[in-house]
């Protein structure tokens, strides 16, 4: 594994009973790189991020995050990564400040009050920091969840469809925050359905369909129109080869 590799997965697969969520796949991510992974619902994007985030163990294959094996050095890995999920991981009966204080202490963030003030500034929630999270709109909660995610300055940020449920203004602001996080020091993996948003920021784009990584290309070699056609073709192909769902309770 090269020194600059932040993620290196070889033959990584994940199976739930008979259902194969991820077929064996190889994935590499360099330091400072931003990878967008596109795929329809059920493609295995969330499962892949959960495995990389140490929330799930792979069924087979090897994963190394920042040179560490998550199954042996889970705590050391988790200290340097973060996940922004569909859920915010925020306590609604705590204030925004109390939420960040809690997570900051769990991650042993240095100069925590100063750091909290910085991230509130970055996500534009300084004036609402003493309000209960339960009183926040979905967009504000999403911004706060991003603040929570980069509070401890992770070296790898995993974003699972972060644009879902955001209005255009909130999506624009999130784009600005993510552009700021793409600073060459931090590596990011973002899953999304949204082709324009996904291609806007990434250095590399991949397509995951039916648990298979069917496409992986550097951004500079991709034209947006061609990519959309490739994505749709991959999706149709996956549908065509997928066996029809049975209605006798026998599963897919």
């Amino acid at each position, binding site marked *: 594994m090269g020194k600059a590799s932040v993620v290196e997965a070889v033959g990584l697969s994940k199976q*739930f009973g008979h259902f194969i969520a991820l077929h064996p796949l190889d994935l590499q991510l360099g330091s400072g790189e931003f990878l967008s992974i596109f795929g329809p619902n059920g493609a295995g994007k969330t499962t892949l991020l959960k495995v990389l*985030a*140490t*929330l*799930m*163990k792979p069924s087979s294959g090897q994963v190394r995050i920042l040179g560490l094996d998550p199954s042996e050095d889970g*705590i*050391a890995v*988790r*200290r340097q990564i*973060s*996940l922004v*999920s569909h*859920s*915010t*991981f*925020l*306590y*609604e*009966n*705590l204030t925004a400040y*109390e939420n960040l204080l*809690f*997570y900051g*202490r*769990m*991650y*042993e963030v240095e100069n925590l009050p100063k750091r909290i003030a910085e991230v509130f500034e970055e996500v534009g929630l300084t004036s609402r920091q003493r309000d*209960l999270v339960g009183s926040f709109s979905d967009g504000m*909660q999403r911004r706060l969840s991003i603040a*929570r995610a980069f509070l401890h300055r992770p070296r790898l940020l995993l974003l699972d469809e972060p644009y879902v449920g955001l209005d255009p203004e909130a999506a624009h602001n999130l784009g600005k925050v993510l552009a700021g996080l793409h600073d060459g020091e931090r590596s990011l993996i973002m899953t999304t359905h949204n082709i324009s948003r996904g291609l806007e920021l990434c250095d590399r784009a991949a397509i995951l369909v039916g648990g298979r990584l069917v496409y992986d290309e550097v951004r500079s070699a991709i034209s947006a129109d061609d990519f959309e056609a490739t994505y749709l073709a991959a999706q149709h192909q996956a549908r065509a080869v997928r066996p029809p769902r049975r209605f006798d309770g026998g599963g897919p």
Partner: protein
Amino acid sequence: MSKLIVLLKKDFTAELRSKDIVLTMLLFVLLVIVTFSFAFEPGSIEVGVLAPGMLWISFVFAGVLGLLRSFVNEQQNDCLLGLMLCPVDRGVVYLGKALGNIIFMLAVEAVTLPVFALLLNFDIWRFLPAIAVIFSLCTVGYAAVGTLFSAMAITMRSRELMLPLLQFPISVPLIIAAVKATGGILAGQTLAEVSGWLKLVGAFDVIFLTVSFLIFEYAIAE
């Protein structure tokens, strides 16, 4: 240790604001005690005989309500996943939740005992030090098992049904020991005389705290 305190502080801050867990348990326990006070003549001999059962029935069922509520807060917005992502041994997350539950249950018990004494005209005060020891030990064991099972049950559709089904069979030795030790003390025995039951409770506490600490990560996985 510091992470344990951080987890506890978070639970206390949330609980002080919502009072969900303590109020749910307290209302249930008080309802049971008041109902018993209608059924039995206050100050009668029957009360002394039935007191251990009355108290432990109410604490055991109230405990189920409180334990579930403590994980309902973690389930909201998938906060439990957020905890699993933190750079801390997942057993410490278990200990933090268990310790919080123990303190909340003990707080409810501390409020309930004077109400019980008052409504049923029962002199519990002279037994208080021994009762405090028994209740503390038994609550630790009950919350140790309950915290593990409520973390498992919280994602299930019939969690209110599943938690008692999972927890009660395992807790039977603890509940028997709790009732017998409390009964012995209220009948005038000393702590030394009920030490056999207390040893059982102590062993239960150590075994289930240790086992739950070790398996918590796997119990809530995927």
